[in-house]
């Protein structure tokens, strides 16, 4: 029964979560399940979310890993698939590998402190799944939609519309494919090994689930050591011979409960006699060394931020405040990338340096940032892009316009253009008289909101936006109109 409830909830959760990533039509503009993910909550220090998740773990164990974490649910899918093909599939018991779990966690903490947030995002389970959803599942969904739109258009209906399918970033695509292969392989053959060796969220929640109030219990009197539960356990955490369970690895999948013919396994209050909880010496060592490096970290982050190899300063999304803030908080889940209606946000290559690989960067190849849109700032679960109201966004300057008169078509071809000024929502570019009755762009960078409309439309890229490493406030446009509205005539 518990198992069936777990499966039903998990299926619903992953369906809603995934839809949040692939939904292009704006059915869900503000996906909520994305906001209760442990990894992003930790990086954004969302105390409420963290306290709730830890409290839930102390109460119920690592249920999070079975019904909230999309990567966990995704692995269960492969696991289920493997059982369809191999009816006799058996697991067993394997001792915990604390040095690996805590070692990975320590490395990640060090990497984060040194500004290599990329590594954290790479293995953070929600973000790893998000990238797969955005880079791999989304195009499939869009393709299906486009097919539907093409068919309906043939019948004269314009109910469905086609959408742009583009490869947003080669690195993010490759990473998503590799994630799929690694996770797929591991979960198909080795159950939840990923969650109990590599996954930093698994390690952290595992630390708390040791003390959980409710847990899987083996009734030692009823148990006849048949090993059925152990064979079913995809977390390899039941030592049936000794009637022991490693609660740091148990993910509350409840598969064992149904497997026991003696009805010796149940989910309930922990026995009064608490198990001895010795903390490994290795764990201590890792935590100590992490703390030492934490003290040295700030300088290293500074070095990372400034150590870019690109002559153009990249633009981080409005609300991200600065490259440094983005670097510290973003796990590259790509929710903002998938939600951006104008295809402006793309996973970064080396724009922010290696540490910021795959974090969102504004690029104006396929569109420009809509003046009145603040979606990315609303959806970010990690606090990397802080929420902005539309009014606040109007005054945020993530980058400034730069005009290169030498290659402007007005100057070079002596032809009229003005496309840049036309696209500027704040008149940071306006046209001023030029030779022979022509007009040529003139910029007022203080007004610029860095939307990139000018850069997108310019036929020769004579205007572009140069990012502000720390975002500035845009000057408010003056509201002046000297139009007499009382007397006018046809004029001809």
């Amino acid at each position: 029964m518990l198992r069936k409830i777990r499966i039903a909830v998990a299926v619903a959760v992953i369906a809603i979560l995934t839809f949040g990533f692939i939904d292009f039509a704006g059915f869900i503009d503000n996906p909520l399940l994305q906001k209760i993910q442990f990894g992003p909550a930790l990086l954004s220090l969302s105390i409420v979310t963290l306290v709730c998740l830890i409290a839930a773990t102390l109460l119920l164990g690592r249920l999070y890993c079975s019904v909230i974490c999309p990567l966990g649910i995704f692995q269960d899918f492969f696991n289920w698939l493997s059982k369809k093909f191999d009816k006799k599939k058996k697991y067993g018991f394997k001792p915990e590998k604390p040095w690996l779990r805590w070692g990975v966690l320590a490395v990640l903490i060090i990497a984060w402190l040194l500004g290599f947030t990329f590594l954290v995002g790479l293995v953070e389970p929600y973000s790893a799944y998000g990238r797969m959803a955005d880079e791999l599942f989304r195009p499939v969904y869009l393709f299906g939609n486009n097919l539907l739109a093409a068919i309906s258009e043939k019948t004269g209906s314009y109910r469905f519309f086609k959408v742009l399918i583009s490869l947003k970033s080669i690195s993010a695509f490759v990473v998503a494919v590799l994630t799929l292969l690694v996770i797929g392989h591991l979960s198909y053959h080795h159950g939840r090994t990923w969650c109990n060796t590599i996954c930093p969220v698994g390690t952290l929640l595992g630390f708390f689930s040791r003390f959980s109030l409710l847990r899987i219990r083996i009734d030692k009197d009823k148990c006849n050591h048949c090993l059925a539960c152990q064979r079913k356990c995809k977390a390899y955490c039941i030592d049936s011979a000794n009637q022991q369970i490693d609660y740091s690895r148990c993910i509350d999948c409840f598969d064992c409960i149904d497997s026991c013919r003696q009805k010796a396994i149940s989910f309930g209050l922990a026995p009064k006699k608490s198990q001895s909880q010795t903390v490994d010496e290795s764990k201590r060592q890792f935590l100590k060394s992490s703390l030492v490096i934490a003290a040295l970290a700030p300088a290293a982050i500074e070095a990372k931020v400034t150590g870019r190899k690109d002559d153009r300063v990249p633009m981080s999304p409005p609300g991200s405040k600065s490259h440094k803030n983005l670097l510290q908080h973003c796990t590259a889940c790509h929710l903002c990338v998938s939600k951006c209606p104008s295809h402006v946000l793309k996973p970064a290559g080396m724009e922010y340096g290696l540490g910021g690989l795959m974090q969102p960067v504004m690029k104006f190849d396929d569109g420009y940032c809509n003046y009145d849109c603040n979606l990315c700032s609303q959806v970010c679960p990690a606090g990397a892009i802080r929420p902005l109201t539309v009014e606040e966004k109007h005054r945020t300057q993530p980058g400034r316009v730069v005009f290169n008169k030498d290659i402007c078509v007005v100057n070079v071809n002596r032809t009229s253009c003005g496309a840049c000024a036309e696209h500027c929502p704040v008149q940071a570019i306006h046209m001023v008289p030029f030779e022979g009755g022509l007009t040529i762009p003139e910029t007022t960078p203080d007004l610029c909101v860095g939307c990139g409309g000018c850069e997108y439309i310019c036929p020769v890229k004579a205007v572009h936006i140069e990012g502000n490493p720390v975002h500035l406030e845009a000057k408010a446009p003056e509201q002046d109109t000297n139009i007499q509205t009382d007397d006018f005539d046809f004029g001809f």
Partner: protein
Amino acid sequence: MSLFPDKNYTLAHSYITNHCFFTAIIMDRRDFLKTLAAAGALVTVKTSGMMDVMASTVPSGSQAPASDNADLAAVMNGEPADMLEAAMKELGGIGRFIKKGDKIVIKPNIGWDRTPELAGNTNPDLLTALIKMCQDAGAAEIKVFDHTCDNWSRCYDHSGIEAAVKKAGATMVYAHERSSYQQVDIPNAKTLKSAEIHKAIIECDKWINVPVLKNHGGALMTCAMKNHMGIVWDRRAFHSRGLHQCIADVCTYKPAVLHIVDAYRTLATNGPQGRSASDVVLTKALFASADIVAVDTAAGKFFTNINKSIKFEDIEHIPDAQKLGLGTMDLDAINVKRIRL
């Protein structure tokens, strides 16, 4: 990063150049001359065909107007629907321009993510009235679209146009995807010999151009001619190859049977987007004509009367269009009706 940055422009461009190049080498000289002659004849036929269309709807200045029907109607002081009705009455009714069973396209300006009060786009009430008028005239199908500048779904939504069109029973067509466009030759063009035009325009029997009158940073004023930017896919090519000539060229592809200029609210400054309601003047006017140059002339004079910092003489694309034979700027030579409601 897109896989092929700028692919639209380069592909179209290389297609044209390669095609011509290939044709030139495989032919010997005699064949080439024959082809040239044939092509010339074809162009002539097509040109005269187009001129017939123009002539039938736009009596030239030298001829005395054959009927009482006005060539240009200018209306002020009314609501959009009332002004449209008054203007069409003067022009001889919508039946002069479209016939029963015609497949019609109405092309408003929906370029910007702006609400109707900010006058960045054509007034939705005017479109509602026009759709009703076309339905009453027996139009078999009415499609409405624009290739927007801002994000298309926000434009369609916030302009109020999608809702108005659907409510009126016409079809809102998408124009944000390249597959909605088709490469066509523009035989009478000087620069833009070929362009990707929206299929709705290519396939329709007749289309009606419904621009909104606005200030424009580059062209000083935007109206009926510049509204043609919204029927093509690759606007960047326009800007790099000479904006005004390309607009004039695309106007020759398949001239709209009627141009109805919405000047109910006029964006007088900071166009074509405007920054706030303070850029907008409630002018309550409407101009309608089958002559695109005449209607832009009338609208231009009206506009420069509102925003006196702009001189009508400085709006160069209107005389340019007259030189290309797209219509007349001489409002005294045609039958102009001025109505105040």
